[in-house]
């Protein structure tokens, strides 16, 4: 199965190891992974800021780069949501393009949904041992319905103990540019999320979107918590988690 990886702009720059873990997971399941090197961004920052024209242009670029693949997989619920959920609405007035966008959107998957729903993964390629709690990222959860899949995949490894936090589905307060424009409100929201992560007792929070990851980790570190780990679900499933520094 020929699968294209949509890295996402944040993973490419901020946490490239997440893309490596994604490739490892896909290859372990027998996929041939390709990475179109001209890919940049799905257009979400512009789309959510009201710049629909640029979002449409980037959607066309994405279509040209990925249309010839059987599947497109991305380690992000919000970028996956942008492509699957929002791209088709951007072209409601252009029936020809809409048909092609619809077809590509249907073949584009968030990583855990693809591993679970399409590949029906039964075994994980790496080892990770410990207790974790899972934060549901908003777009993945509400636009794509990603909720059971990451948990089912984590359960494939008997050495992972998942302890649910209260209100795992509550927003972490990131919201893209919201986190910069209204940093004080955003940090008040993430403080509540952190409270719940701590209350779960798990030393590690696992999630599926870079925005939440940077927001939660950034606030943890700023408030003096240097030990609670923030990991992408791909890293945990692939067993690519470096030993904790002392």
């Amino acid at each position, binding site marked *: 199965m020929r699968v294209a990886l949509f*890295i996402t*702009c944040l*993973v*490419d*720059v*901020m*946490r*490239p*190891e997440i*893309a*490596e873990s994604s490739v490892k997971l896909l290859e372990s399941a027998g996929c041939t992974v390709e*990475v179109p*090197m001209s*890919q*940049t*961004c799905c*257009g979400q*920052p*512009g*789309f*959510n*800021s*009201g*710049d*629909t024209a*640029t979002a449409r*242009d*980037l959607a066309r*670029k994405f279509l040209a780069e990925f249309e010839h693949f059987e599947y497109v997989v991305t380690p992000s619920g919000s970028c996956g949501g942008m492509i699957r959920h929002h791209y088709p609405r951007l072209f409601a007035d252009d029936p020809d393009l809409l048909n092609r966008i619809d077809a590509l959107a249907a073949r584009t998957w968030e990583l855990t949904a693809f591993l679970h729903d399409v590949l029906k993964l039964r075994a994980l390629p790496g080892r990770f041992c410990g207790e974790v709690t899972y934060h549901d990222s*908003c*777009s993945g959860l*509400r*636009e794509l319905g990603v909720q059971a899949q990451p948990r089912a995949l984590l359960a494939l490894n008997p050495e992972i103990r998942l302890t649910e936090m209260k209100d795992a*589905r*509550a*927003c972490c*307060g*990131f*919201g893209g*540019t*919201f*986190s*910069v*424009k*209204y*940093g*004080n*409100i*955003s*940090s*008040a*929201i*993430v403080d509540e999320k952190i409270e719940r992560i701590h209350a779960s007792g798990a030393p590690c929070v696992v999630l599926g979107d870079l925005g939440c990851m*940077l*927001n939660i*980790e*950034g*606030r943890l*570190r*700023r408030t003096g918590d240097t030990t609670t780990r923030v990991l992408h679900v791909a890293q945990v499933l692939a067993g690519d988690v470096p030993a904790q520094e002392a």
Partner: protein
Amino acid sequence: MQVQSMHFKARSGQKLADVRLQQNLKILSQRWTVGRTQAIAELDDFEGTRDEAVARRNRALANLDVWLERFEQAASARGTKVLWAETPEEASRLVVEIARRHGVRKVTKSKSMVSEEMALNRHFEAAGVQVVETDLGEYILQINDNEPPSHIVAPVVHKSKDEVSDLFARVHQRPRLTDIPQMTREAREFLRPHFLSADMGVSGGNFIIAETGSVAVFTNEGNEGLCTVLPPKVHVAVTGIEKVLPTLEDLATVARLLPRSATGQSISNYFSILTGPRAPGEQDGPEHMYVVLVDGGRTGLLGGEFQDMLRCIRCGACMNHCPVYQKIGGHTYGWVYPGPMGSVLTPAYQGIEKALDLPQAATMCGECHVVCPMKIPLPDLLRKLRERQLDRGLRPWRERAGLALWGFAAHRPALYRPLTRMASRVLRWIGGDAGRIRSLPMSAGWSEFRDMPAPTGPTFKERWARRPR
């Protein structure tokens, strides 16, 4: 009511620092989200009921003019006078005029958010008419120097019991009480004489029913009946023109969702269908009944990309579940309607330029859309407002420049790749051994509150290009 939404940023800072408010909001969000979850679980087919209610509301809005005229005919046939107001101010003038015509000196008022749009109490006072709010929450706000409500269903939710105890002791000049039933009894003692001596009662209208010419009102305290049916000569209901439902059947469907979504009740304690003044031989009801229907910007939404918003039944579920509302409370939004629905309605009714922060101050988490019984796509509507702000040049130049630069680079892979490589290197260098950046001059809103974790190594594309094949 004057729009104060331009002070959003300053107010949100104050509200975040208000420890007591933060505790009160936490209690609210917990109680009401749990309440709704339990209440909708009672319905055999919540989703089916919701789809049906949405379809019925859409049917009403698709031919709004027809249903409104039908309502007017049916209401007139039962002796109700229907008056039309293009603006909230005009509606206030009409209501004050009704009071003058009937020689009214005192008005009791049941809860109505449209009357907040109209600033009705101020108009009554200017005309020398005494007005008494009789909903407990609204009463508390009125005796606290006419404080505005902070929630459309629970107007005083920002206050704790202790704050109300202090207020009652000060205003009522009685010993301070701390037991809620006793406090409620005290408020009733103060309100009862007003009910008995009022000449006119004003209520809102959750819905108006075209086939019968009725006004439907959902309440929990029984004060509405005392305002509208029992003693007064005159009852005036004020509501928005979008609240029309063609039939009682429609009302029955929507009634299954409204209290459940709002307060987590299967049905509110009181549910009145008011049809016309007291007819000969009838035991109760007012001598005169009026319905004042307010446009106030609503027709401007018809047939446009914001029409979905007119389905709103004012349950408040969107704000109860909103992570932003839960942190800053209702007053920060600066007009009558707070939370996600208010962030659409305020710019839509009052002018997009008067409420620039509201559509931006949302995380787009989508929970409001998930819980809305009318399936209003609130995040999409907020995004459309952001689009209009940008199109009309209402965003700051730095934001526009940033977007333009990002768009330019994201289109040009040959430029984008070296840029991201460089960005990764620079950020890693700033991050140092700790791998954390403490200050981002271009994004101070982030770094004032959070570190920025630095990149963990060269970009994935660099690594992939080096991967042996």
